[in-house]
């Protein structure tokens, strides 16, 4: 047993028991303790991943539906009425349905897929494996974290089936629209369910985040100093810190909203007339909600992005057979992004009547993010530069991530300037920007991670041919879908509008919108192909025959091909070097467990 284990008697006991199981095999795990209420971080990670995939299919399908409306506003699709009844009366997507679709698409993708599905999956699977721990600091809280996410999912899913429909005031749920049931069908029961679901979700991410931070700081194996950790772990660490500090603020905003909705308080409401009825609420401030929301909302962007950045760093280094370029610069820029993430929230609020002087400070802080972002991009490119690159599907997705991060990051400079933002806010330009830089880029990071660590998760490979098709169609498709939206936005086309055909100035975009819709359908179909590849390969994929298929240095590849609970049979390996000794002293890779040789050169 490692030293780390012996220090904490209570923690050790459970691990020690598990540890013995692997050798003796007398204790039988039931199906329920092994696959459902499992406390094994690897199983919990897979639970997060599969739940995330299911949500991604739902969220993606919703985007296809509203793209149908945007591409073909005057056509009818009788099949929609068959499936959705009154929501698509006469085969046409009704306004309430459209707003519900975009709201749930945003909520689901941002929170359930790219937060829980991304960091929930990879923080769980990678943290203990890569730092050399048998499990999380508290496996029980970790299990609770998944089950709170599951409950949040159930509540959100059930809100899709109620008569008044799910929340439909946009994923940012700004009051007063979200606070008043008489203003919008979706602001009735659907909105309450949305808030309950998000409260459960916040609890889930907090429980997860507490565990990730504590595990990384306290449970590293012997020799694994902080600066020897792979960048994936650093990224997960900063992600968890962001989540732990920002989600509670969203919760407090949501609690005040619940009070306004159900108990008659006026935290956000003032001087409102709905359908001729004058509401008694006085003294509230709708802007207050935006402050509370975006204080979470902006760090949330980095909660989504950082895990992808970390995994991309690792995958690019492993597959270009070169050390990561500028390890300390990568850490520094992750840290800088983490700090700045908390200081820029008001750039989402330039047009709310914010004092222009205050706005200019937020412009400055926002544009400062370009510095660490550029450092990271530079380091990824120099890591690839003259590398002996193996173009696995994971590598391609990692390179795709870098491409999208650059394209989407550049448009961030436009939007970060408050003067330009006055023209561009609430247009398709914003939609294009955040989908490329946050949505699709992080999806690419997630795909890269799934392709790269699938052998560790399931002991089999994903099919590479399907992987290549998946990559190229998604890559080309992503640019075909979102690039034209920049032009629409610059021309002033608003986002979230059901039908823009009555504006003569936007009729020029009719054919473009059709093209975007067709590409979205193709890209969505290819994602379903990936889902097929995923589930097929779990059972029928090519088997992994060696413990270290990618020739990587990190600790997860020193475990058995299909590690049990406890990860290592026998002792936890000791670490002697950083994670990026590739192509050094004439050797292709030197695992972290190998002691430093006498004549070894420095990196």
């Amino acid at each position, binding site marked *: 047993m490692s*030293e*780390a284990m*012996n*220090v*904490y*008697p*209570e*923690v050790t006991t459970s691990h020690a028991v598990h540890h013995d199981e692997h050798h003796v095999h007398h204790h039988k795990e039931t199906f329920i303790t092994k696959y459902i209420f499992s406390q094994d971080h690897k199983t919990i990670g897979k639970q997060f991943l599969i739940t995330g995939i299911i949500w991604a299919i739902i969220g993606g399908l919703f985007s296809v539906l509203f793209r149908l409306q945007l591409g073909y506003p005057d056509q009818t699709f009788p099949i929609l009425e068959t499936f959705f009844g009154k929501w698509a009366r006469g085969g046409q997507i009704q306004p309430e349905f459209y707003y519900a679709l975009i709201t749930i698409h945003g909520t689901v993708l941002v929170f359930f897929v790219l937060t829980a599905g991304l960091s929930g999956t990879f923080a769980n699977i990678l943290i203990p494996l890569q730092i050399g721990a048998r499990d999380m*600091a*508290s496996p029980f*809280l970790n299990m609770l974290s998944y089950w709170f996410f599951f409950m949040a999912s159930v509540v959100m899913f059930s809100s899709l089936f109620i008569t008044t429909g799910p929340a439909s005031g946009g994923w940012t749920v700004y009051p007063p629209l979200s606070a008043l049931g008489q203003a919008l069908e979706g602001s009735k029961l659907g909105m309450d369910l949305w808030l309950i679901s998000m409260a459960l979700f916040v609890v889930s991410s*907090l429980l997860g*985040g*507490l*565990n990730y*931070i*504590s*595990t990384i*700081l*306290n*449970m590293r194996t*012997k020799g694994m100093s902080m600066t020897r950790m792979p960048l994936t772990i650093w990224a997960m660490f900063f992600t968890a810190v962001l989540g*732990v*500090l*920002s*989600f*509670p*603020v969203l*919760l*407090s*905003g949501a*609690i*005040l909203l619940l*009070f*306004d909705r159900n*108990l*008659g*308080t*006026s*935290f*956000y*409401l*003032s001087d409102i007339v709905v359908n001729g009825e004058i509401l*008694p*609420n*006085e*003294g*509230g*401030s709708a802007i*207050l909600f935006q*402050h*509370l929301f975006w*204080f979470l909302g902006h760090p949330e962007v980095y909660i989504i992005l950082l895990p992808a950045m970390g995994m991309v760093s690792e995958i690019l280094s492993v597959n270009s057979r070169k050390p990561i370029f500028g390890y300390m610069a990568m850490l520094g820029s992750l840290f800088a992004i983490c700090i700045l993430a908390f200081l820029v929230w008001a750039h989402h609020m330039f047009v709310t009547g914010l004092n222009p002087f205050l706005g200019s400070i937020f412009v400055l802080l926002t544009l400062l993010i370009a510095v660490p972002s550029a450092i990271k991009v530079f380091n990824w490119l120099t890591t690839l530069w003259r590398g002996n690159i193996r173009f696995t599907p994971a590598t391609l997705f990692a390179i795709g991530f870098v491409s999208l991060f650059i394209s989407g990051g550049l448009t961030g400079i436009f939007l970060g300037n408050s003067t330009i933002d006055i023209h561009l806010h609430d247009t398709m330009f914003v939609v294009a920007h955040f989908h490329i830089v946050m949505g699709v880029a992080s999806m690419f990071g997630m795909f890269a991670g799934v392709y790269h660590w699938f052998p560790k998760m399931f002991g089999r490979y994903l099919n590479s041919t399907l992987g290549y098709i998946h990559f190229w169609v998604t890559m080309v498709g992503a640019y075909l879908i979102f690039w034209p939206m920049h032009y629409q936005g610059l021309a002033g086309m608003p986002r979230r509008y059901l039908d823009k055909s009555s504006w003569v100035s936007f009729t020029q975009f009719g054919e473009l919108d059709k093209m975007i819709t067709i590409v979205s359908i193709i890209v969505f179909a290819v994602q379903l192909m990936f889902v097929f590849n995923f589930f097929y390969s779990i059972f029928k994929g090519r088997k992994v025959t060696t413990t270290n298929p990618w020739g990587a240095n990190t600790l997860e590849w020193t475990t058995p091909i299909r590690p049990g609970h406890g990860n290592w049979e026998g002792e936890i390996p000791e670490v002697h070097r950083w994670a990026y000794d590739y192509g050094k002293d004439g050797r292709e890779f030197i695992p972290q467990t190998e002691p430093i040789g006498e004549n070894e050169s420095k990196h």
Partner: protein
Amino acid sequence: MDIVSNQQKKRMHPHKFILWVAIGSIVMMFAGLTSAFIVKSNQSTWMPVEVPRVFWLSTAVIVVSSIAMQMALRSFKQRGMQQYRLLMGLTLLLGAAFIIMQWLGFQQLWDVQNITFKGGGAGQFLYVIFGLHALHVLGGVIALIVMFIRAFAGRTKLYSAVPVEVAATYWHFVDLLWVYIMVFFLAVG
């Protein structure tokens, strides 16, 4: 080998560490609410509130309970199980008394001062902030009940002070948090 274990012993127990991070997280939640309070208090329609006297009493109660908790921890470390049980029981009772007093305070505010949920001033914030704090105390009371029962059930085989320490730290935290909120309402509200 010894050197390494000694080094590792200096590290905090993971459960304690988790608690500290959780405390940071709870602090952020109340920081969000109190800064919302400050932002709104600058508006012209703001309605201030007079904090009912009962809350002074509850402040005294929770401070005393914090001292009792600390003494309980000390007697646990000194293996004085009898005294530990007594002091834990006392902490538990004081915690419950605190929550009841908060309820009485709310009643006074509602019935006597006529501050209901109508509006969005200091009074409504008081209900939300005091209420959420009381929920956190309630969580602590439930944890204490579990530990209290454990202190009686069976023989204690493992004399690890960690669970008691974790509970004590949380208890002191909700105490401090209450003092912060109280001072905040007196100074700003």
